């Protein structure tokens, strides 16, 4: 394939863009994905990863049906990165119960397809046995089950699968303009942040999958796209503090939740119409307090749990105005600007494959290509088979838990990493102690999954996402990255600063309790010992850093 001529250029490497690139590539289109930063570096990385039944959209039966179908598909193509979470909605007074019967029917309608039970009521005794942290005055609870996915791995696996099917994926390439003839897009101009050069590729069509930036890309193409941008924040707690997911009515009557997620717990989420720059976004004090107070009504002791950080993202909603956020459709729209660009508004993680299917159908139609969608049939990399970590642990002499965590990221591909340890037994060393991540996986990821920075490694490996938030792994991982990518000493330090700054962005807004002790230790290591605050490398403070 030529490196400068494509059938379709997909802009944006979130869940949507990677899904589109995968579908296009699988249908044989010459595909290029351009991502300004890293795969899953924006909205998708701040979401809860719920592959939801669509429960909240009971007024949109077609969306609920679509969600249910997608759950079935993801359980087929990506089961190795999926989890099922049992959920309780504790009811503290009868009016809660009465007002919610609509949800129950709506959820239950497609439950069978998803192989989960219809919603059920539980007694207060049963509720408290399942989750003793629930308020003792609970009068009943509603029980249901939902599926969750690792949104980082999903996006990355979609990108890798696109590459496997012939697509090109360029990260750190920001689209800055379009070459047009007669109002029609002929080429895409982008700035390559790694090489520092501006490049142009020719293409027949462009799919604008830039989430909350979609209107800006449209504008670059002299088109208008309206979006309703809506900020959402999560508070992340250390480890799984609840036995099951908990949902509850927030202070303002919306629903909030406490979901076990991987080895943490997510408390979310807020929904605020926003006009902020997504690149400078941080959680606000009000949001954190709103979430804590809302969940406190049903889990009174929640503040005793350790908060490690926050994360905030912007939902690119369909532009329904003059209604409250929760009345806005959670469906998506495909907007054909009729000038070579097709944009999305709306959508969800759970729908990304479906969005891709729809848009690729349109792309194929426009290009006169006849090819059918197979993205729901073919497994994503690693989901080809079951993995027996117990025998692998014996075979390779690596602890079971290390392998189980690795399996949850990689499925059958785990063996490729383990093979590396045959020649390099020293790569069995644990680098990130919290997740954990061993050196072999870091080296493998650097070689096969095109990361450029420590933050990219974090998205691929969960490096530094545990309770210590990179206190113990950053230097070690940076050394490996520098060796593999042949980085200069200054780049090494800047990368450490970038990584710590990114962690700080989430830690700072919610910092309290036990995390204070953690930060003190981190400070001791990185400033008192590492002298990073005195470093004279060329580093610009981030907008959320002190003194910026």
């Amino acid at each position, binding site marked *: 394939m030529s490196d400068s001529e494509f059938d379709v250029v997909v802009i944006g490497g979130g869940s949507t863009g990677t899904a589109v690139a995968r579908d296009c590539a699988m249908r044989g289109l010459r595909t290029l994905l351009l991502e300004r930063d890293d795969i899953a570096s924006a909205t998708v990385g701040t979401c809860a990863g719920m592959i939801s039944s669509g429960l909240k959209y009971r007024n949109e039966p077609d969306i609920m049906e679509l969600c249910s179908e997608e759950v079935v598909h993801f359980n087929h193509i990506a089961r190795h990165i999926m*989890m*099922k*979470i*049992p959920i309780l909605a504790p009811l503290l007074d009868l009016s809660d119960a009465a007002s919610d019967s609509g949800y129950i029917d709506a959820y239950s309608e497609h439950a069978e397809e998803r192989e989960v*039970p*219809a919603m*059920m*009521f*539980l*007694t207060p005794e*049963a509720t408290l*046995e*399942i*989750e*003793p*942290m629930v308020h003792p005055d609970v009068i009943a609870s509603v*029980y249901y*089950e939902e599926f969750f996915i690792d949104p980082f791995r999903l996006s990355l696996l979609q990108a890798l699968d696109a590459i496997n099917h012939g697509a090109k994926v360029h990260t750190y390439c920001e689209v800055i303009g379009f070459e047009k003839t007669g109002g029609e897009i002929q080429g895409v101009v982008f700035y390559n942040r790694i090489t520092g050069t501006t490049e142009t590729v020719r293409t027949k069509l462009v799919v604008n999958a830039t989430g909350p930036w979609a209107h800006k890309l449209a504008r670059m193409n002299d088109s208008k796209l309206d979006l309703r941008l809506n900020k959402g924040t999560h508070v992340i707690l*250390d*480890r*799984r*503090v609840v*036995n*099951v997911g908990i949902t509850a009515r927030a202070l303002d009557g919306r629903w909030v939740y406490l979901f*076990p997620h*991987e*080895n*943490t717990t997510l408390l979310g989420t807020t929904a605020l119409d926003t006009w902020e720059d997504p690149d400078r976004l941080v959680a606000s004090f009000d949001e954190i307090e709103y979430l804590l107070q809302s969940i406190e009504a049903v889990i009174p*002791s929640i503040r*005793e*749990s*350790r908060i490690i950080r926050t994360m905030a993202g912007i939902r690119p909603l369909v532009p329904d105005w003059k209604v409250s956020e929760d009345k806005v459709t959670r469906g998506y729209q495909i907007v054909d600007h009729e000038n070579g660009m097709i944009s999305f508004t709306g959508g969800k993680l759970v729908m990304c494959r479906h969005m891709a299917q729809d848009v690729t159908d349109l792309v194929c139609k426009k290009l006169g290509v006849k090819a059918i969608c197979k993205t729901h049939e073919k497994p994503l990399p690693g989901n080809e088979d079951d993995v027996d*970590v117990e025998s692998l*642990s014996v075979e390779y002499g690596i*602890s*079971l*838990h290390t*392998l*189980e*965590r690795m399996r949850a990221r990689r499925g059958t591909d785990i063996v490729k990493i383990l093979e590396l340890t045959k020649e390099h037994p020293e790569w*069995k060393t*644990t680098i990130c*102690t*919290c*997740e*954990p991540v061993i050196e072999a996986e870091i080296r493998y990821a650097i070689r096969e999954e095109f990361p450029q920075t420590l933050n990219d490694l974090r998205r691929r490996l969960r490096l530094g996402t*545990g*309770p*210590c938030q990179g*206190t*113990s792994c950053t230097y070690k991982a940076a050394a490996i990255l520098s060796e593999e990518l042949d980085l200069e000493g200054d780049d090494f330090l800047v990368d450490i600063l970038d990584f710590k700054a990114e962690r700080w962005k989430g830690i700072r807004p919610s910092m309290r309790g*036990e995390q204070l*002790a*953690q930060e003190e*230790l981190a400070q001791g290591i990185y400033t008192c010992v590492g002298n990073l605050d005195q470093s004279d490398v060329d580093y610009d403070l981030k907008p959320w850093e002190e003194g910026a």
Partner: protein
Amino acid sequence: MNEDEAFEYVKGTLRSERITPYHPYEIEVVRSIEKCINCGLCINHCPVVAAVGIDRFSGPRSIAVELSRSPPEYWSTADIVYLCTGCGTCREVCPKNVDIPEVVNLIRARIFKHRPDLVPKGFYVVQEPLTEYNLAFQPWEDKEEKSESRDMRLEKLGLPYVQDRVLDKAEILFYPGCQAEERAQEVREAAKVILDYFDVDYTLLDEMSCCGLPARLMGDDQTARSLADRLKKKVKKMGIKKVVTTCAGCTSNLSDLSYYFDWGVPTVHILEFLAEDIGLQRFGEDMANSSRLSPVHVTVHDPCHLIRHTSRQIMDYALEILREIPNVRVTESEAYDSCCGGGGLVSYHSRDVADAVVKENIEAIQKTGAERLVTPCPLCTAQIENNLFKSGSSVEVDDLTVFIAQRLPKKG
């Protein structure tokens, strides 16, 4: 589905997702683990890490920041969590008081429920008698033989036999624990000699039953709880004021049970009882009259379950008590408070690890030049005695209760 059927269904999902909900009393443990700041201080103090290396046992830090974070994955820690002896050294040095030994129990309990195939097979030797006889050891088949064995031990040690006392009501319950009940009978007898000597109003249980610690350590929570309940009922019914034990494990476990399940009755080790209830002065005065005091040079081993799970005060008492016995010279071993490797049921499945841990103690004991080692726990006694013997050492080991009883004057 009605609510009961619904609950049954939910239990099924929890089982298939490998979730056993935390009990309210376990939440305290989880909170404690959340405090870990990954400073790594504990690693250098863990005796198992020191003995077998971090590649075999990833150590307390990894238990806190890695292995204990997600209950559905607890099964995958089975190659590590059974190697913790529960000595509590990590917890003692941790700047955040992270309760590693308890989270290990909490994890083991989940593996026991969800992946019994990963529970070390060696544990079933303990589990069988526990569920069948409420004891950690197979009881003697022939009661005659048991008495003969006891008498032989008494004779060898020069201890008198004091009749068993089982009363409906008494001030004190003497609770020997399984090891002293079935194996180290001399310890049980020695305690009776001491209690009898000081005219203590005590009783034994009509039928000895285990405190449940071994069940808890192997993760069999259900058995642990039913044994604890059984004991609680008996203790409550007898209306006793205090439980006195001779075993470090029983002391700490019964104290925990009493705290978490409102027994309202404290448990003390017989050393505490001597120091606090009998009084060191009276003890010393009586000892001064003893005729059985040939000079002896000893060194002392501190059981983890006393110093780290209960209180270091108890071993301070031990030294004070030894000081009150004339002709006893004590030399401190460099490894006096280092775990003997006998804890956490490690020796039941990984003898090599338990023995690697005790090596440090053995070397340090030899260095003291003492002729005897004393320690107030029949389990430590057995573990250290075996390993001293294997290493060809001539140092003899005494349970401290026996050592004291041997030196008491004849009751007159």
